[in-house]
């Protein structure tokens, strides 16, 4: 083998080896493991589609059954490492190297596997970053993907959860890789084509439908009055102040509270149409009341959300939909929109240090990043102006710069004490200690302090854009850190001076009365209320019902 087409020749050999297992492109589920043994070679880079939400779970179960003599030492390159099977690949030696973005439920198992040396870790990426590397130095040799339906030519219909699939397939199929798809069913005619058939080599109908996790459903019944207070401060002190129209929300309860306050508290402040009109956001059920009240112009989605299909289908002015009427999501595109075309990211975190660095790593758990670092980063490549962006830039520059540059608003919302009364403000992030223990080159910091513009706690808002120097930032952070050690260690005079300058703003400075922060302000009090708001179009999964 020499010349300029070694990869294409190798592909041809693998395809011929597998040909006897397929009728056209269709392979029986019982032959899945045999197929993978013929297609995958030791050391291959494999993307076993594990997205934020949908999972190629059948192919994952097929892959862990391969003969380890034939298939071993794989390099797994996928955004989500969320199924137990994903880790089993490493425990059994089928896979050795890992480059990923998000591990969510497997965070603890992943940390244990790293500690035991089962995994050779490349890096924990952000989504766009990993996708970028699919086109640079981490191009998959084999992609094992998932879709709802296929036709006999291999065209795929992903349904609303398109997510990562086009990005994975593009990189694999156009670089002489092999694409295998598991689908819920094979049909004669697809509702729409999300992936072209000539980019797909094999299709397997899985015995059970693929798994999708409802990740973005927050039950309004669980929103606390502290979160409502923080949401009121954020709306009045940040949304209104900067006139933020284009934004992304994190998935926590504090931002869910904001979503539920827009049609009530936001309306009373006269903000409708002035804030929160364009979103890079998964289909959060808690945004339904704001949508139904006419706040939202459009939303592009990274993925979908279980139960939201019919609602989105009925709201094509709001959501991106295909000719079949159902949602089309796309994580790569939406992450880009969030990075370059949003003026604000606002979300929660678990720990913030005194430089404003934040992390969701806790002792023994590596949850990865997902998209937060992209959303929560000021993109230096941005070259279009909006009022919100310019105002933030002016605040950061102190008016001394002749060359005006904008800033993205990156807001961290956090209660001073979190779950089990763990302080949110710390001297050293747990992720730094973990990086030391596991000998990682980079500590997994979710959002770097120099990107953070505001911190919102129940004690107030710290505007870090207005801080001059590291010492001031530290006091601004301590000044909203409540009764944590970090908060009690504040220099009271310095904090009072920052408050005089408007760097720190308490609820009373914003004209927010904490006694007004009651659940009565929420536009919906329960999942059931959200169903009512949607006119019965939202169909929540069983686990969120209380009726």
């Amino acid at each position, binding site marked *: 083998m020499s010349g300029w087409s070694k990869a294409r020749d190798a592909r041809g050999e693998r395809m011929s080896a597998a040909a006897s297992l397929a009728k056209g492109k269709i392979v029986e589920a019982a032959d899945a493991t045999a197929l993978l043994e013929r297609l995958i070679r030791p050391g291959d880079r494999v993307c076993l589609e594990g997205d934020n939400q949908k999972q190629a779970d059948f192919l994952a179960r097929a892959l862990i059954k391969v003969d380890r003599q034939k298939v071993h030492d794989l390099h797994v390159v996928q955004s989500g490492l969320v199924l137990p099977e994903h880790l089993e690949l490493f425990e059994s030696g089928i896979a050795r190297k890992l480059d990923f973005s998000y591990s969510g439920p497997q965070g603890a198992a992943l940390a244990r596997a790293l500690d035991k040396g089962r995994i050779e870790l490349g890096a924990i990426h952000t989504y766009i970053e990993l996708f970028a590397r699919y086109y640079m130095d981490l191009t998959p040799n084999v992609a094992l993907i998932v879709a709802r339906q296929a036709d006999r030519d291999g065209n795929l219909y992903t349904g609303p959860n398109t997510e990562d699939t086009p990005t994975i397939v593009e990189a694999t199929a156009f670089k002489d890789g092999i694409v295998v798809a598991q689908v819920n069913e094979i049909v004669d005619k697809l509702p729409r084509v999300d992936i072209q058939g000539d980019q797909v080599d094999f299709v397997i109908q899985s015995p059970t439908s693929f798994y999708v996790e409802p990740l973005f459903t927050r039950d309004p019944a669980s929103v606390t009055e502290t979160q409502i207070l923080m949401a009121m401060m954020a709306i009045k002190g940040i949304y209104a102040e900067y006139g933020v129209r284009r934004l992304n929300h994190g998935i926590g309860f504090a931002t869910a509270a904001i979503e539920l306050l827009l049609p009530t508290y936001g309306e009373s402040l006269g903000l409708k149409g002035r804030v929160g009109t364009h979103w890079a956001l998964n289909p959060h059920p808690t945004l339904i009341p704001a949508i139904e*009240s006419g706040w939202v112009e459009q939303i592009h989605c990274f993925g979908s959300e279980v139960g939201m299909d019919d609602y989105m289908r009925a709201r094509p002015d709001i959501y991106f939909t295909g000719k079949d009427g159902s949602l089309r999501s796309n994580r790569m595109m939406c992450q880009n929109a969030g990075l370059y075309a949003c003026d604000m990211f606002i979300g929660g975190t678990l720990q913030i240090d005194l430089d404003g660095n934040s992390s969701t790593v806790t002792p023994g758990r590596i949850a990865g990043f997902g998209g937060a670092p992209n959303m929560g980063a000021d993109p230096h490549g941005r070259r279009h102006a909006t009022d919100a962006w310019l105002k933030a830039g002016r605040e950061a520059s102190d008016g001394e710069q002749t060359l005006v540059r904008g800033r993205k608003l990156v807001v961290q919302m956090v209660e001073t004490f979190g779950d089990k009364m763990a302080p949110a403000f710390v001297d050293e992030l747990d992720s730094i200690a973990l990086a030391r223990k596991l000998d990682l080159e980079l500590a997994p910091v979710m959002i770097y302090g120099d990107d953070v513009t505001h911190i919102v706690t129940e004690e107030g808002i710290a505007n870090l854009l207005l801080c001059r120097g590291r010492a001031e930032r530290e006091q601004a952070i301590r000044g909203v850190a409540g009764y944590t050690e970090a908060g009690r260690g504040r220099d009271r005079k310095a904090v009072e001076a920052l408050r005089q300058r408007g760097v720190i703003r308490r609820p009373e400075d914003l004209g927010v009365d904490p006694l007004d922060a009651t*659940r009565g302000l929420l536009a919906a*009090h329960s999942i059931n209320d959200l169903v009512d708001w949607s006119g019965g179009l939202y169909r929540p999964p069983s686990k969120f019902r209380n009726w």
Partner: protein
Amino acid sequence: MSARVPERGSWLEASARARVAGLLDANSFTEFLGPEQREMSPHLSLFDLPRAFDDGVVVGRGKLGGRPVFVAAQDGRFMGGTFGEISGSKIVGLLRAARDGAAGDDAPRTVLLLLDTGGVRLQEANAGELAVSEIIRAIAEARRAGITVIALVGGKAGAFGGGGIITACCSRIVVSRHGRISVSGPEVIETNQGIEEFDSKDRALVWRITGGRTRWLTGGADRYVADEIRAFREAAMALGAEDAAPFDLFRLQAEQSRLEQRLQVDGDSRDATQIWTRRGLDEPERVGDMTEHDFVVLADREAPNHDAR
């Protein structure tokens, strides 16, 4: 596209005190053994658990539509509204006071039990089991003395364990969609009988089986109301104004035959939808999802007609 904000005054979300305040005539409530008396559980400290000044139960007297009533309300947010030594005794004492016609000429003839409980408090199980038994006996004695005892169930904890049995012993039962009434909790059934028997994570199933709508359609409640304090108040007023039915052998036999008949008709059902189908409902699979308004219309049409309880 109008800003519809749901009405305030949800029973589900309210505390025990807020329920009592909203249920009774304004400012008519006088509490017995209030939190200022600090009658707290003597057991919880042994487990290093926080105590409550009222042990999670509010008892007292007040007026409902001008008529005197006794009222007891559990707060499901404190220890799951469980029956312990103190919380149980408060309810027993209230029922006995009603039985004895305490409070003289203006003695209440109605007791309202606002149940919101997971059952017996495990940390003080013996005292809690005794309390449940004593409450059941006290209800029977009060009813025998011509007192109407009305159970109101619509809290987050529902009425489970002894709370489910106590509910069934009352003269009348008012329930909302969220109010679950049962004896063994879903997790307990799953643990003992397996997930095939009952999947406690399947919340739609849990509510289909134990929730207010099914309880009402199968005669396990006398009134179905929307999740509003006002609606509970109206139902309690209407039921409290009725003459107390005699609590005698005839009534117990009627209740026994009602239950036997229900078992005969529905005993082999695997899910509530089968029961709804047998009741001849047009769209049984939709019962759980119907809007409150639609269901209340249905509820009125299907109102139970029996002289049991």
